[in-house]
């Protein structure tokens, strides 16, 4: 058997095992909308941990982090900085968000804005921006899958057909299992990825340099600037680091899928304990950096840094091991992709389509519509993956610039009654517009600062100022007994 066949067989076996666990996790449960989206709101510490961690260990971690360590150098450290701080932020906001979610039976992120600000247009805007930001994140996963199959097949299978096949599978598995299935696959892939990451991260520097210390010494000799910011770039310095870390730490739980994943927890305390221990879970992230830095000396001159991890694995280890890494990588792309698709579909169906375009739909119809949206969103991301060409980290930062704009509305709104709908709506529109203009005009970073962060600052300013001007009296959450009709369940089931 040729090496590409071995590698691809192992990858397929791991992916098949993942899909099987997913189908199993989703079966024998009646799937109504609530079960499909938030798993019946009954996940304990373990499952929530896996679900949330599962979304951190994405292709981004696996290929993107090593890729940036390879191509940019020290600026990649922002990833450790922000993930750590994102959990700190989550400690203060998620338990209360969860409490609000339980009280009002919220299912999606946009639902939260509905009960807080009672405007279906703001809700629809949040849903729309959330969906649009999800597309680059999804594109990141698809691109990752394509890279994996391309490298593992030694170039025999091109990236495009690989991406198409893998994503048909993801969409299929989301259709049948909902979030519970996704959570269990997440468990499987974390296990594989964890061992793969530790092994590769330790073994690669050891094989080529005799250890991690000597490797760093070699990098410091060969490319002295690479290990401190701005690394191999000219504009990613300390100001960029601080602004990007802040943007991402605030933006992290504003991702519609993270926001929504927190609703699946059993209690607010689960989320609080989760926030305490989660930084330990990213301890493998530096190992990915090590692999990228080792590749910098061993395989210089790769056109695309995102290939560095897989190329060095392919060069160093037998092909079955490339298959194991590729399989783990494929699952880390599929699980988050599944969650992303699920979130985008429910945002569209529940918060955008029903209240604005077609009021009067039943839950069953919305559920069906959500599944059709699954296909549409997958195709959109697939399309931009085929034609786009940004680094994996670049894609993620683009999404962050968008979702972080929810932060003032969500967090100030959660804790203060003085924040008004006009303030939040205007602030959010300003933030999104500035982020889009700066990014499209290639002004990122601007004056050394992350463009999304600049947009977020304007967002905060407008939200605060306008809320202060338009404040007329307490504007808190909706009354529980009169929660907005857009959120009430419309199926006619008998109470059980």
């Amino acid at each position: 058997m040729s090496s590409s066949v071995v590698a691809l067989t192992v990858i397929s076996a791991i992916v098949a095992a993942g899909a099987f666990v997913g189908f199993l996790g989703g079966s024998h449960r009646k799937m109504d909308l609530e079960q499909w989206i938030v798993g019946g709101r009954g996940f304990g510490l373990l499952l929530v941990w896996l679900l949330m961690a599962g979304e951190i260990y994405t292709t981004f971690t696996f290929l993107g982090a090593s890729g940036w360590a390879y191509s940019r150098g020290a600026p990649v450290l922002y990833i450790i900085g922000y993930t750590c701080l994102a959990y700190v932020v989550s400690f203060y906001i998620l338990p209360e968000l969860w409490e609000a979610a339980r009280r009002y039976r919220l299912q999606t992120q946009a639902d939260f804005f509905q009960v807080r600000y009672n405007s279906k247009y703001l809700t629809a805007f949040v849903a729309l921006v959330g969906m649009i930001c999800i597309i680059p994140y999804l594109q990141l996963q698809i691109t990752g899958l394509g890279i994996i199959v391309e490298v593992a097949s030694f170039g025999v299978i091109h990236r495009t057909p690989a991406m198409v096949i893998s994503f048909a599978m993801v969409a299929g598995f989301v259709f049948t299992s909902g979030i519970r299935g996704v959570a269990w696959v997440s468990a499987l892939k974390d296990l594989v990825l964890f061992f793969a990451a530790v092994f590769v991260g330790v073994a690669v520097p050891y094989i080529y340099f005799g250890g991690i210390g000597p490797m760093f010494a070699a990098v410091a000799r060969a490319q002295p600037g690479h290990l401190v910011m701005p690394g191999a770039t000219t504009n990613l310095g300390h100001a960029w680091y601080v602004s990007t870390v802040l943007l991402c730490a605030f933006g992290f739980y504003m991702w519609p899928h993270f926001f929504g994943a927190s609703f699946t927890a059993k209690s607010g305390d689960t989320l609080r304990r989760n926030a305490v221990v989660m930084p330990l879970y990213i301890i493998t992230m530096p190992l990915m950096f090590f692999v990228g830095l080792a590749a910098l000396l061993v395989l210089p001159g790769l056109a695309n840094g995102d290939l560095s991890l897989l190329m060095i694995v392919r060069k160093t280890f037998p092909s079955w091991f490339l298959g194991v890494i590729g399989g783990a990588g494929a699952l880390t792309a599929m699980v988050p992709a599944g969650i992303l698709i699920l979130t985008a579909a429910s945002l569209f169906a529940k918060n955008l389509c029903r209240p604005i375009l077609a009021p009067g739909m039943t839950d069953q119809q919305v559920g069906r519509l959500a599944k059709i949206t699954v296909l549409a969103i997958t195709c959109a991301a697939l399309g931009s993956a085929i034609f786009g060409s940004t680094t994996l980290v670049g894609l993620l930062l683009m999404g962050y610039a968008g979702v972080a704009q929810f932060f003032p509305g969500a967090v100030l709104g959660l804790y203060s009654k003085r924040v008004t709908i006009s303030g939040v709506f205007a602030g959010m529109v300003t933030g999104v517009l500035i982020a889009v203009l700066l990014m499209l005009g290639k002004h990122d970073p601007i004056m050394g600062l992350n463009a999304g962060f600049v947009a977020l600052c304007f967002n905060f300013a407008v939200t605060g100022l306008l809320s202060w001007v338009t404040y007329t009296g307490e504007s808190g959450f909706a009354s529980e007994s009169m929660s907005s009709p857009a959120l009430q369940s419309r199926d006619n089931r008998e109470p059980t």
Partner: protein
Amino acid sequence: MPACAKKVLETALPSGCFQRVEFLDLRRAGNTHSRRSGYLSAQCVNQASGSFPTAPPGASSDFPSRPTCLAKCCYTPAHMEHRDDQRFSAKRPSPASILLGLIPFAATCFSVSLWDRVYPTVLGLPFNFFWLILWLLLTPLCMWGAYRLETHRASQPHRKDGGTL
């Protein structure tokens, strides 16, 4: 004067519960969080007035549309204790716990120009890599402290608007 008055809203319900009731705390009249409503089983209809009832262990705190009684003599809350206006309002974290959370921010974000250097290397790692990895371990410590503060606060009967932790 009894501490609390019972108001019967409904009787002879299906599912083993006898009465749907509401308790009013007389000592805190006018207070926004002075009501609890729930279900009483037939055996304890006469016993439960006089003091604020507590739910038996294991009783569901979510709104049961048709409650089942768990013990022979029991009070099952219909909802959480709630404020009269039934609006959610979030509990702000304590300043002390926020202060603990600011430590990792100061250490890994704002102070970047102090630690972003290769030398001195520690355990073979450039200093900036070492510093951030170290804070992956120290951040949970800070947050554990914050957790202790928050849960200590929560163990006191404070959540007046009826939420859980």
